[in-house]
């Protein structure tokens, strides 16, 4: 699939995500919009996965460590055929398997339960280490938020990934520069990330994480060390009034805002 096609799919996923947030009256729309281009590239170009065999032992692994953007993952999984597209309408409804954070025992395609931050990367290290021990050829990807990197468990995992020589592991940091309450800069500024990851023995690639031509080659890159993609993204990407504003971490658009957002995302669909 080519970048133009991926862009089109990403816009469709954004639109469905926006609709679901509006209908459910909840969600984490800012971080969903920042991550959707990468999720699209993963599921429609990079990952070797089989929706009809979600537990296939050779599948590539993807862990959404920033589990609060579960809706973006659900919409992507639905579009890719893991779950019915109409099921997105049940998001956050009573007894829906699509709750606010992904559940691997209920939703095909989800690898491990996330929600509390700083959990996905250690699990991904275990997945990659398992492949090394068994000789499996799958690749493991994990996406964290930039604020999430404040969790110390991530740095335990980063050190061990280098120690274990996990060249089959790719960490994507969705660097949208905002966390729940404020900017990263005004909270606990871990940026710039590249020198820190390099110092731990990782290869690092910096990209614009909302541009397919940069996302795809970075995800497909292979080297001799664990690989971190520092993806510079925009919180609320694709919706002009949401972009780069902390308010839209988990705000829900009103009817007027929703209409504007739908119009913007519908352009060039």
């Amino acid at each position, binding site marked *: 699939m080519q970048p133009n096609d991926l862009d089109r799919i990403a816009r469709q996923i954004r639109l469905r995500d926006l609709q679901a947030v509006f209908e459910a009256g909840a969600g984490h729309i800012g971080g969903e919009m920042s991550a959707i281009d990468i999720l699209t590239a993963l599921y429609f170009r990079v990952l070797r996965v089989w929706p009809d065999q979600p537990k296939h032992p050779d599948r590539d692994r993807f862990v959404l460590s920033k589990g609060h953007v579960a809706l973006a993952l659900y919409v992507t999984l639905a579009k890719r055929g893991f779950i019915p597209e109409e099921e997105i309408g049940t998001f956050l409804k009573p007894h829906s398997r699509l709750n606010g954070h992904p559940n691997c025992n209920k939703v095909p395609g989800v690898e*491990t339960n996330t929600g509390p931050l700083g*959990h996905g*990367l250690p699990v991904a290290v275990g*997945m990659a*280490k*398992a492949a090394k021990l*068994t000789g499996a050829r799958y690749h493991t990807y994990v996406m964290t938020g930039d604020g999430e990197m404040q969790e110390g468990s991530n740095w*335990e995992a980063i050190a*061990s990934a280098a120690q274990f020589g996990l060249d089959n592991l790719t960490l994507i940091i969705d660097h949208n520069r905002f966390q729940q309450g404020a900017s990263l800069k005004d909270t606990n500024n871990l940026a710039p990330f590249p020198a820190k990851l390099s110092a731990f023995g990782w290869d690092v690639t910096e990209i614009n994480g909302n541009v397919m031509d940069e996302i795809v080659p970075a995800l497909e890159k292979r080297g001799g060390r664990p690989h971190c993609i520092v993806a510079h993204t925009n919180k609320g990407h694709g919706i002009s009034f949401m972009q780069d504003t902390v308010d839209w971490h988990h705000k829900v658009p009103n009817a007027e805002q929703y209409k504007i957002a739908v119009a913007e995302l519908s352009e060039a669909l």
Partner: protein
Amino acid sequence: MNAVTPAPKLHDCRDAFVAVLERLGADNSRIVAVCNDSVGSSKLGGFKAKWPDRLVNVGIAEQNMVGVGAGLANGGLLPFVCGAACFLTGRSLEQIKADIAYSNANVKLVGISSGMAYGELGPTHHSIEDFAWTRVLPNLPVVAPCDSIETAAAVEWAAGHDGPVFLRLSRVGVPDLLPAGHTFELGKANLLRDGDAITLIANGTVTHRMMKAADILAGKGIEARVLNMATVRPLDVESISAAARDTGAILTAEEHSTIGGLGSAIAEFVVSDAPVPMKILGVPGIFAPTGSAEFLLDEFGMSPAAIAEAAVALIARKSSRA
């Protein structure tokens, strides 16, 4: 001159754990050990010598250790994640909740040197809260074997169980109580001695103390039932119901806080389904003073003589109700 009864041989249950792990590991290359720089204290030196690649040592990083365990299981391996019980459970509780229990990952958590095995090292190293922290989590069986025979059987069972398990082991020497060839059954207490005056229930390092207490009681003409209840979750409610019905009083003892452990679990059932007088022996909700595990168990009323005294007092409460 009376013959002197030789003191029973005491076993460090870690030896039984690693013996079974290495035996199973020889036939099953999916078995891996994960540890936090605890090769020595978890007695994993033999496993490491045999299969160095299958010993995954993450260093002193327990949160990562548990997460890595979940990932190894996702990749088709059968990880035994080993560390001092105080750090494994306390430091990594959220990982145990989210990555292991809620994700239902096929990971065996092995808490070594639980209870007050590190008695002299102080409360930071005591693990007398771990039943409370783990037994509240769905999907996670909690098992504290009483001797080396039950430890071996429980490890064998855990390896074959499809799902997470928390095995709570000690390094404190205990005599063998169960018969050779014993098979572990999850959620099934073992009747070690029958009686009708009271039921004594314990697990881990305290069960043999209960047996000695029953001997003392027998010397007074009081026949106590003794149940070894290794499984704290799921609880053997049938045995507890029968104990309440047949003996009318239940005394529990454990190397754990009196809050939230085996006694609490039993009390939760007894109070609603089988109300009889009950007493819970353990560490009474405080940070324990300095001393060996054996000293501290005695200190907190779990010497055989003190257990027997508590039993007599409880039996008196039973008759005062009649």
